[in-house]
């Protein structure tokens, strides 16, 4: 429980700091007052400027929440994938979902839509479609009779993922305009701002992560192998399908609205396995909260490092994530986590 409260405290601090930080200085106190005032039924005497309120409420707060939701979605589904595949390297990339979503989004960007509004809704929809097509394809390829062995699933995922990435590169080389935007998207630069993407992604993330939490116990039992799990009464095939579809949908939603962001889904569950043990009933919720906090921190770094211009957050997660991953690898050699 202490780990939960601590992680939650870090998330809250990161959320506030993320709104405070920016080109225009707005004090934490003002930020809290502006947010409190905006809550329904609360009326504070205004001691802040309308411009500050607009910056906080229309730009920084929705951005921070979108980032937090993305981090939560990636880390939560990452934890579920790792448990399902009993593989410390399992993440949305391994089974090709993220690459499929990326391909869908870039394909939509390569087309010249009549208005900017079309872009806003069609790119996420295309990312979503790409992810679902990828899962379907990977699943069909990996299926041996009516069972999907994890080894063939991962092999199919890597192959389809590489294929999708190659197609994405091809599209980017062929398309004249929009290419900067596509690159920025693939590096995890959120193409969308304001409350629209937040409201659009919210139902998927809440539904997806809300149901993944219920798979903690079956995933625990699954760590003893599919056969033993079945002998202990877990309907292994059903659990596998549910977790893959739910985690992939959640990932696709995150990718669609925030771009392709690596390493969060890999590192955060690892970190919490180190801190809190292998029990997926705790690990998944901890990864959700921790993932939100971690991506907020990475996003702040991305905005601060080259201020006033900002980096795509995916570059920061990769730069910070890779060395961290190597450190985990070194530790894992000495201790048994799996």
């Amino acid at each position, binding site marked *: 429980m202490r780990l939960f409260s601590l992680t939650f405290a870090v998330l809250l601090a990161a959320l506030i700091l993320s709104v405070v930080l920016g080109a225009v200085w707005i004090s934490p106190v003002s930020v809290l007052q502006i947010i409190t005032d905006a809550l329904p039924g609360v009326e504070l005497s205004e001691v802040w400027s309308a411009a500050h309120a607009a910056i906080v409420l229309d730009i920084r707060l929705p951005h921070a929440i979108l980032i937090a939701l993305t981090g939560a979605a990636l880390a939560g589904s990452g934890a579920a994938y790792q448990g399902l595949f009993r593989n410390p390297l399992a993440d949305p990339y391994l089974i090709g979902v993220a690459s499929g979503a990326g391909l869908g989004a870039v394909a939509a960007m390569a087309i010249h839509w009549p208005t900017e509004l079309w872009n806003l809704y069609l790119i996420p929809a295309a990312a979503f479609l790409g992810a679902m097509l990828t899962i379907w394809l990977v699943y069909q390829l990996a299926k041996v009779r009516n069972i999907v062995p994890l080894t063939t699933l991962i092999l199919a995922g890597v192959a389809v993922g590489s294929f999708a990435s190659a197609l994405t590169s091809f599209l980017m080389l062929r398309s004249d305009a929009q290419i900067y935007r596509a690159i920025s998207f693939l590096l995890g630069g959120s193409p969308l701002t304001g409350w629209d993407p937040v409201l659009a992604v919210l139902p998927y993330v809440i539904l997806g992560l809300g149901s993944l939490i219920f798979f903690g116990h079956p995933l625990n039992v699954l760590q003893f192998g599919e056969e*033993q799990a079945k002998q202990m009464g877990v309907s292994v095939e059903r659990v596998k399908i549910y977790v893959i579809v739910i985690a992939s949908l959640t990932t696709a939603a995150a990718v669609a609205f925030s771009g392709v962001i690596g390493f969060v889904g890999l590192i955060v569950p690892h970190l919490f396995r180190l801190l809190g043990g292998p029990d997926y009933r705790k690990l998944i919720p901890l990864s959700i909260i921790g993932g939100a906090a971690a991506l907020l921190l990475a996003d702040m770094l991305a905005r601060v490092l080259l201020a006033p211009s900002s980096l795509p957050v995916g570059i920061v997660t990769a730069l910070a994530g890779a060395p961290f991953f190597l450190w985990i690898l070194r530790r894992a050699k000495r201790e048994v986590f799996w």
Partner: protein
Amino acid sequence: MKSVQVKELCLAYDGFQVVKGVDFTVAPGEVLGLIGPNGAGKSTLIRALSGVLPIQSGEVWVDGTDLGTLSDSQRARLIAVVPQAEPLGGAYTVRQAVMMGRTPYMNWMGNPGPRDQAFVKRALEFASLADLAGRRIAELSGGEQQRVLLARALAQDTPILLLDEPTSHLDLQHQINLLSLVRRLAKENHLAVLLAMHDLNGVSLCADRVALLVDGRLVALGAPDEVLTAENIAAAYRAQVEIIAHPRYGTPLVLPLQD
């Protein structure tokens, strides 16, 4: 009523016939020893009885119900398995692992109730693991890990227990302990036990009846002294043995002869 009733059972992997028409029963309170050379189909049989491998043809009845009609959790409330030891789930503690045996009685959140706690406590004591309950499985010896698998199966609280080579990693003391534990479970708790094992003398001491499986067929089924004969062993294992009676219990002892 028989706890396990197997009729004309055929099993196959990828179209390759492994078990070819096997009939036997296991009654409550009975230990049936399953012996046979490598590749005879012992593990395949256990995988099928535990619902992991689909049945090709034939019937399996457990507690009067067709095995195929049971859901995974219904089946897991009737049949528990002590699998061949594999190093899995090493990061969990002994108590966590044994608690997973309660899965068929718990909801998807896996929150244990007082009944689950009581069964786990009893299973840990039965397998003399109470002192190791807080240790991680990866830190235990092979023999201790095998006892964890036994305790987990006991926590599952089933009328039927299937064991696949449960003594393969155990030293003599723990072999004897485990086999007498299994026998006590059958006699005191009226469990129907199917015990697949290579150690013929262990089976002879522990089992009420012995089934000899060769190349997917049952070639002998009966009391240990009926099945464990020099002729049967020679035919099944292509090895010359002499059978003598155990000086204390009179059960058959298999002594290998040099060629």
